[in-house]
């Protein structure tokens, strides 16, 4: 049994939860770091006048991109302005091709161990067995958001000069490039976040870590993602935000739950992360069904995306069938990974914090100098300073705005 990703904010099944001691509920998670580290809705609006401070390699001259960005499909193209390289699979440049320095590798290991030693709720990482600069990450949608119970798989790659340059991040959970889950999460997989250089606002700082990056991404998945879009602080049409949430809930169950579990192989997702999804699924099953049942009246209606994205038609009835099929399959063949993943210890996960199951890569042991206290310091700093007042967080901060 893999340890579950389910965040501990409702006190259900806490023995399986990653961080039972953490008071940060999913909703707390989603608001606090946003203030300091990510370009959340308000943040972005505020920055509108200060776009010139945003790092934009090789894109001098054109800062009126915001006009082109309001609206959805156009937005994806409009963002070329921030020419930051974002795609972890784009190996066309030296940043990715040169081998990482020992200092860089050490920092990456430190980042990973910080997450292992103090796992933030709903967050799981797994280094690629063949390449230390490549990390597989799984975020579960936070409680009380339309993303609740969804499995969002990210691919992260560190450039050779990390942490001087930010990591590159791609969301793999996009229904094969068809679903935009958030104004900041494009169907191309691009993650629009100022600290990644893909959005206006506080830019990257080498005090950021893998953990703060993932927490910032998690904070994009908030209660009312509609308002993440610049210029949509207030609803354009009454009911837009609720309507957008209905769409995201449907697509979360369709694409971030059912298609993720059925398509894990297609996406080359590491077995350990797949096991985490499969062991979390039964815990969420009741919730999924409730969502479907309470939205059945929408079936047959087209999803009117407030940003003009093309979307399918609501079909919660079909989702219920799909969920049922998956549930039956999972309980039938309690998937046995022992052949592909011999170091996993069945039955051990339940009482473990976080992602201990992922912790099989002993390459991760730090040579010499770094100690536990060092590691937990890295992580604790990322959180506590964010939560205290948001003004002194690593790279958080307020001073680059005007």
């Amino acid at each position, binding site marked *: 049994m893999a340890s579950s990703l389910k965040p501990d904010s409702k006190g259900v099944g806490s023995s399986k939860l990653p961080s039972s001691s953490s008071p940060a509920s999913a909703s707390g998670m989603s608001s606090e770091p946003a203030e300091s580290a990510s370009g959340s809705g308000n943040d972005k609006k505020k920055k509108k006048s200060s776009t010139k401070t945003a790092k934009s390699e090789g894109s001098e001259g054109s800062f009126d991109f915001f006009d082109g960005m309001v609206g959805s499909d156009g937005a994806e193209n409009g963002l070329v302005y921030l020419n930051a390289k974002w795609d972890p699979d784009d190996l066309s440049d030296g940043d990715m091709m040169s081998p990482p320095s020992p*200092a860089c590798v050490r920092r990456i290991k430190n980042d990973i161990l910080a997450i292992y030693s103090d796992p933030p709720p709903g967050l799981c990482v797994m280094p690629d067995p063949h390449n230390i600069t490549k990390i597989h990450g799984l975020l579960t949608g936070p409680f009380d958001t339309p993303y609740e119970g969804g499995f969002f798989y990210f691919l992260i790659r560190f450039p050779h000069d990390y942490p*001087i340059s930010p990591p590159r991040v791609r969301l793999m959970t996009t229904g094969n490039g068809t679903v935009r889950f958030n104004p900041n999460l494009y169907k191309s997989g691009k993650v629009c976040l100022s600290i990644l250089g893909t959005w206006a606002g*506080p830019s990257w700082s080498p*005090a950021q870590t893998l953990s703060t990056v993932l927490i910032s991404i998690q904070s994009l998945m908030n209660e009312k993602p509609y308002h993440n879009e610049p210029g949509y602080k207030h609803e354009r049409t009454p009911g837009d935000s609720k309507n957008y949430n209905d769409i995201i809930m449907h697509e979360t169950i369709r694409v971030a739950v059912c298609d993720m579990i059925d398509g894990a192989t297609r996406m080359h997702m590491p077995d350990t992360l797949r096991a985490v999804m499969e062991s979390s699924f039964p815990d969420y099953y009741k919730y999924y069904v409730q969502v479907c049942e309470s939205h059945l009246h929408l079936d047959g209606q087209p999803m009117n995306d407030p940003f003009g994205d093309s979307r399918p038609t609501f079909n919660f009835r079909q989702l219920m069938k799909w969920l049922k099929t998956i549930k039956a399959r999972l309980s039938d063949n309690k998937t046995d990974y022992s052949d592909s993943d011999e170091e996993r210890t069945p039955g051990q996960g339940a009482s473990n914090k976080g992602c201990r199951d992922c912790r099989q890569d002993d390459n991760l042991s730090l040579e010499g*100098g770094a100690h536990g206290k*060092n590691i937990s310091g890295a992580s604790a700093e990322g959180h506590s300073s964010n939560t205290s007042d948001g003004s002194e967080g*690593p790279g958080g901060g307020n001073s680059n705005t005007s």
Partner: protein
Amino acid sequence: MEGWTGVATWKWIANDDNCGICRMAFDGCCPDCKLPGDDCPLVWGQCSHVFHMHCIVKWLQSQSTNSPCPMCRQEWKWKAG
């Protein structure tokens, strides 16, 4: 450069003991160096944040226009030692 006494003072104020850039402990050297001590000095900014000199220099050199402190984002100004 400031020496180890400075470190103790700073620890007392900021209650932290590792470099915000490389995350290595200040009682060791930065990951590019082999031996702790004078070869890998610590440096302070006027904002009172402290880093391995090698780490902060790498960061400042990578910045084309402004050079914010990695921790507080204020413009980095060397504190006269």
